Structures are given as C-alpha cells and as structure tokens.
C-alpha cells in the first residue's frame, strides 16, 4: 500500500494516458453516431460558438468595408453603367413573362433535378494549423446526415455564381455537425478536368492547397484548367467545382503527372455553406 502511495501520481498519470490511448483506438473506427456525452457537450457549446462566430464575422467584414471607402466613387460610376445594362435585359425578361405558362412547366422539371440544398452557418473552426475542420449549425434535426456533401456558392471570372466544393459531413449532433474540408490531408477526391474530361485523384496538403495526379500520363493538362468532381467512388457528389490548376510537374522517374490545385473556396474566410443531403442525390439519379 505504501508503494502505491509513494508512486500515486505516476500511477494516476499512466492510468489516464492508457485510458486515452484506448479511447483513441475505439473512436478511430467508423462510427454510426456520436456518444451521449459528445452530443451533450456539443449541444451546450455550439449555440455559444454560433453567437461569437457571427460577431467575429461581422466585425471583420465591417473592417473590410472601411478599407474600401476610397473606392466608392469609382464603384458608383461602374454600377450606374451596370444598371443601364440590366434595365435592358429586364425588358427582355418582361417579354419572356408573356410566355410564362409554357416556361413554368419547364421550371418544374428543373427544380426536381437540382439538388435539394440546405443552408447552414459555420459556427467554429478547429484551433491549430493541422486540419481545416469546422462545425456548422445544422444537424440531425434539420435532416443532415453523415457523409453529406458541403458546398459554397462562389463567383467565377465571368460573373456566374457556381458551386464550390467545401467538404463533407463526418459526424452529426442534434443541432450541429462536424465537417471535414477537402484540403484535409486524409480526404482523397476523384476529379475530372472540364476541358479534356481527363480524370485523376487529388488530396489535401498541409499548406492549404490540393495536390494530385492524373490516371493517364499522356493526359493533356495545363495551368488554368478547371477541375470538377467526377463522382467516382460515390463519396462526393459529382460535377461540383473544386478549383483551378496552378502548377503541373512531370518527373521523369515517376510515371504520373503531378498537379497542384488552388481550391475555389477560401477556407480561412468561410461563413455560409450549403449542404447536399445524400438521399436527394440518389433520388435524382
């Protein structure tokens, strides 16, 4: 007994360390749902995080607004031109309204084929620099399920707003969910180039970029090619914009062409995301 007393501290420390290692081993497997304890902690903390994330987002955008005050006049001129342009197209659309009943049917059809998007706010980011994981404010109660794809609306060069890949849901709580972004090191995504339809695989990198390779060595890929998800493997929904190729390197000793991709989404300034539930994707096929 005195031996235990003498080494009491060490015994406790080793016991806790061993318990933690066992927990790591147990939770590393694919789990179907969260444990009651994790759910409770998440349910209490995420509403608070939501408030603070909102405040921080608003104050940052206020600062950026202040920086842009100087550009206002220039922007005003540009917008006046834009209004004139839009008025013209508006007239064109009024013409279309006349054909409304016919178009309505077509619209109905389109609605059924596009994904049933659910919007959510980011409420917290993982501290540290290892991974880009975050928590969103929608969960089981809103119909979010494990494995759902998370995307963001982004503006492309030609002014069209397109979907940009963010990541996927890995665990779901009652009113919150954990999301792993595509630049996380362990995510492998199968892609295709929009120009040539060549396929390959990309995965995350520690410096916030994606690196990958093509299946075909002779495939024609150049800087500036736009990449979309191909849907192979069934983890990510297909035809979602990932990003642009910024570098292509071919090493002689390797049989593959390596590429570096700049993702379309800015993961440091992420606030509002959309979720594509898996069941609607299966329905549309």
């Amino acid at each position, binding site marked *: 007994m005195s031996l235990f007393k003498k080494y009491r*501290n060490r015994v406790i*420390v080793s016991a*806790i*360390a061993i318990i*933690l*290692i066992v*927990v*790591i081993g147990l*939770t*590393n497997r694919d789990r179907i749902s969260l444990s009651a*304890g*994790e759910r409770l*902690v*998440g349910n209490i*903390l*995420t509403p*608070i*995080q939501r408030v*603070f*994330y909102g*405040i*921080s987002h608003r104050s*940052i955008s206020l600062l950026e607004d202040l920086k842009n005050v100087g550009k206002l006049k220039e922007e005003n001129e540009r917008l006046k031109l834009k209004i004139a342009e839009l008025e013209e197209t508006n007239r064109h659309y009024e013409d279309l309204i006349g054909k409304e009943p016919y178009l309505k049917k077509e619209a109905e059809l389109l609605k059924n084929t596009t994904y049933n998007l659910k919007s959510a706010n980011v*409420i*917290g*980011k*993982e*501290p*540290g*620099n*290892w991974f880009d*994981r*975050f*928590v969103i404010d929608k969960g089981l109660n809103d119909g979010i399920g494990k494995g759902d794809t998370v995307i963001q609306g982004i503006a492309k060069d030609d002014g069209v707003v397109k979907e940009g890949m963010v990541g996927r849901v*890995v*665990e779901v709580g009652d009113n919150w969910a*954990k999301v*792993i972004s595509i630049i996380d*090191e*362990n995510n492998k995504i199968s892609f295709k180039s929009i120009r040539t339809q060549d396929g390959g695989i990309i995965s995350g*990198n*520690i*410096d*916030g970029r994606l690196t990958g390779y093509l299946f075909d060595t002779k495939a024609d890929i150049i800087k500036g090619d736009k990449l979309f998800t191909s849907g192979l493997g069934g983890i990510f929904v297909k035809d979602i914009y990932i990003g642009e190729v910024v570098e292509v390197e071919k090493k002689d000793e390797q049989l593959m062409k390596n590429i570096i991709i700049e993702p379309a989404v800015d993961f*440091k300034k992420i606030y509002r995301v959309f979720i594509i539930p898996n069941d609607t994707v299966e329905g549309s096929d």
Partner: protein
Amino acid sequence: MNTLIIVLLILANFILETTLFPNFNLFKIVPNMGLIIVAVVALLRGRTTGGIVGLTIGLLQDTIFSRVIGVNAFLYFLLGYFVGMAGSKLSRDNIITPFIITLGSTMTYHFFHYLFMFFLNYSIDLSTLFKNVVLVEMIYNSIIAIFIYKWLSKIFVAPTVRFRRR
C-alpha cells in the same frame, strides 16, 4: 477562487479560439492558444493543475472538432503534467522561462501529433509541415505566451502561507 478563474479561462479561450482568433493569422498560421494556456498554467500552478487543464482543453477540442477522440487530450495532458514538473525547478520570475517552455512544448506537440497521425493513417510530409507550420507557430506561440504569463501571474491569487509540510 483560482479554480473558478481556470474554468472560466478554459471556456472563454475555447469559444474565442474557435471563432474569433482564426482571423488573426500570420502567413496563414494561427497561434495555438490552447497549448499556450496549458503550458503557462502548468508553469504557474504545478503538475496536477497543469495535467487537469490540459486534459479538459484537449477533450473539449476533440469532442467538438475531431473524428477521433483523445489525441489532443492525451498530448495536452502529458504536456501539462511534464511542464508542471519542470516548472517547479525553474525560475518563475524570469520572462525567458515561459518563452523557452512554450517553444519546446509547441515543437514536442507537433512531433507527437505527427506520430499519432502517422499511426492513424494520415500521410503528411514532415519537412513541409516543419517549414510551413511549426517554425512560424513556435515563434508566434512563444511571444504570446510571455504576455499571457505576465497577465495570469497577476490574476492568480497567491496561496495563503502554509506551515505544514506537504
């Protein structure tokens, strides 16, 4: 009293760290406030408090963000314990102490985190990690640690004089 301060500190840090602090990045690197607080509290309050604070911060972080529970809890717990043990032998008035301790802790944390990730089947390039993340974060963390150390050493209530041997 001190317990209350530590609990509030852990909660406030967690909420701010995950919401507000990512905006203050330098070369896209965010300081690891959790690690700084574990190191500083352990230095000031000894190994028992250090271990408990590390365990709590790590578990919180793991439950909310990570798929695998326990990696951060394990690392922060042992870090807090050992820093607390070393702290009793170091000069606490010297401002260099928290700097050096945080520098070492950050490096140790990343190294063992890399080991864990390696066995959890993540493939990460160690040299890129070191160049792009660890170096900047080490310096960033250590400088912040000095200020946190100064601030916390004022806040913690000095223990009442005890004559019994512990």
